[in-house]
């Protein structure tokens, strides 16, 4: 749904690196190099970021559309 706050296995804080990670991945950087530079060493923590899909963004689209429709109704 949303990036977990901590690594499931070891408990290292990983949630705070997500924004930078996803931004740099989008620019085409190599994921392994980004994780190295963020200081995430163990493979348990690396998979947290590597395998995360922000499904919350997909769900939020329904709410955004509903909001838009509501605004359109009020406009006319």
């Amino acid at each position, binding site marked *: *749904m*949303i*990036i*977990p*706050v*901590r*690594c499931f296995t*070891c*408990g*290292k*804080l990983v*949630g*705070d690196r*997500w*924004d930078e990670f996803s931004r740099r991945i989008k620019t085409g950087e190599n994921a392994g190099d980004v994780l190295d530079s963020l200081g995430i060493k*163990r493979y348990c923590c690396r998979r947290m970021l590597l395998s995360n899909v922000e499904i*919350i*963004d997909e*769900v*939020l689209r329904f*709410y*955004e559309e509903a*909001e838009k429709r509501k605004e359109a109704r009020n406009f006319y």
Partner: protein
Amino acid sequence: MKIEVLEKNDTNLRIIVKDADIPLMNAIRRLALAEVPCMAIEEVVMIENSSILQDEIIAHRLGLTPLKTDLASYNLPDECPCQSEFGCQQCRVTLTLDAEAKDATRTVYSGEIVSENPEIIPVSDTIPIVKLAKNQKLKLEAYARLGKGKVHAKWQPVSMCAYKYYPKITLPEEDCENCSKCADICSKRVFAVKDGKLSVRSLLDCTLCMDCVEACPKNPSPLKIEWEKNVFIMNIESTGALPPERVLKEAYKLLGKQLNEFEELIKAEQL
């Protein structure tokens, strides 16, 4: 006992401990994981939550957010003189979060949490708590308390606390064919081969896996991997709640305290 610091920064501490033994090192490790207290949110009162995540999920995320801990000014709830279920100024910190998405979808970060004590705040300002679509609101009050890692992992001050033996590598003097198979198989790249000659590049990285000995075509292998029986490399990685050296000190203090309690019990029983 002697201690030598290899690496030290805000979250990581790597030390060599000489003249120690396994029981002591393991006691310290277990105390750091399970007994050293730190602060975490334990109760959340939801005032308004129109986000798409359930109350419980948000509360869980808040609980896992590591908080900077001040051990000197707060008591563990069990040891606090107030003995109140709700807590008092000495055993509880109130944090509030009031977020609203006014114009567009946005992320609520841990930096928006307001604490009554400016010392007890999340260790990082950029942990996403929830995402709000336009006109969604999140308003809550959270109570943080000290706790121990054995009760819940959110109270663990360390994300890693491990020790290993200090490796001792004896390179073959003669009888070696210089095939460099041992250097190739090592996943930690402990060996370096220069002009066909084997040397040790990073001794401390060796995990004593013995892959190099098994890869050697000769049996028994002229390469010898051993370890010092009473020298350890200890690695402590803090979640940020407490500095790693503080975790180590607290673990030592707790060991002393527990042993004293044990001694008094023995005396009371007149054994």
